[in-house]
């Protein structure tokens, strides 16, 4: 069926026939000659935004961002997790506490260090050790057998024995 037969009304057909096509609208001289230049200028002067506007690039960038965020979160989460004691040797623990003793509170220290450990802990970078007191030291008072003759003699001199103070007794 001829498309032109769609115009059924004779009057309008006549009217439209009298109206010439494509001669009513004009364009500036040489407009179509410079058209491609304008398109090239827009395409090549803004290549970054072109790439970003490509749907496949957007998907790639979004996917990459999601993976990066997940990796960061997982890494950060693991970093903050307390390590199991079995994963660290006694020496590693001691080295850690020695280096960071100022930053650790007493409560935290007590959580980790047992009473038995106290006997051999090396504090900071000194070579001093805190010897563990013998239980008998605290229970029995010292007797004469614990002191040498020189210590006894020195003590008696300090107390004024031989200077006449003791003669009056």
């Amino acid at each position: 069926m001829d498309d032109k037969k769609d115009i059924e009304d004779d009057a309008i057909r006549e009217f439209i026939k009298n109206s010439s096509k494509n001669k009513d609208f004009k364009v500036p001289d040489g407009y179509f000659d410079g058209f491609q230049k304008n398109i090239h200028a827009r395409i090549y002067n803004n290549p970054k935004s072109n790439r970003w506007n490509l749907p496949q690039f957007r998907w790639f960038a979004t996917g990459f961002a999601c993976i990066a965020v997940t990796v960061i979160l997982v890494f950060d989460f693991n970093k903050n997790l307390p390590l199991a004691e079995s994963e660290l040797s006694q020496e590693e623990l001691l080295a850690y506490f020695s280096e960071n003793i100022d930053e650790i509170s007493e409560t935290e220290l007590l959580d980790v260090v047992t009473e038995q450990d106290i006997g051999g802990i090396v504090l900071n970078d000194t070579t001093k050790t805190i010897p563990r007191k013998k239980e008998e030291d605290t229970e029995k008072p010292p007797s004469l057998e614990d002191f040498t003759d020189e210590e006894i003699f020195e003590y008696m001199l300090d107390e004024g024995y031989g200077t006449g103070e003791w003669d009056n007794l």
Partner: protein
Amino acid sequence: MFTEEEIIEKIQDKKTVNYGFNLLMDKYQEQVYWVIRRMVIDHDVADDIAQDTFVKVWKNLSSFKGDAKLSTWIYRIATNESLTYLRKKKRRFFLPIGDVEHELSSSLESDHYYSGDEIQLKLQKALLKLPEKQRLVFNMKYFEEMKFKDIAEILDVSVGSLKAQYHHAVKKIEKFVKDD
């Protein structure tokens, strides 16, 4: 002049894509411009939309798989851009349809690049009273002399409904002209 198939072949090859795009513009720039111009009336606006259309075509060349005709695909982008512009114009200024028609009609009379005679101006003014899609169909059929089958593919409607739309458009134009 290169055929559509030859142009598609060029744009699908990475080595000749730029050349293929230039051929595509050579072939379609004028037809695309006129479809847009008859919808938006003003030359500067039509120029902007025509440029946007070809920039969009360039950006999406990789996604063109050849399922539809190249010309259909380009016209579809152009008509969508034109209709989007007209809808935005209405929304931005909260204009009712009648005011848009009035504004386009004023723009037509003051346009330096419009030199239609009395009959042509009358027809254009009558066309501006039509709903956008009917005007688009009429312009493509009457001025661009496209086949109903091609217009139907561009607008993604059936040929039957397109013919009905065209028939209604003609009837309305007749009424507008008689009443004027």
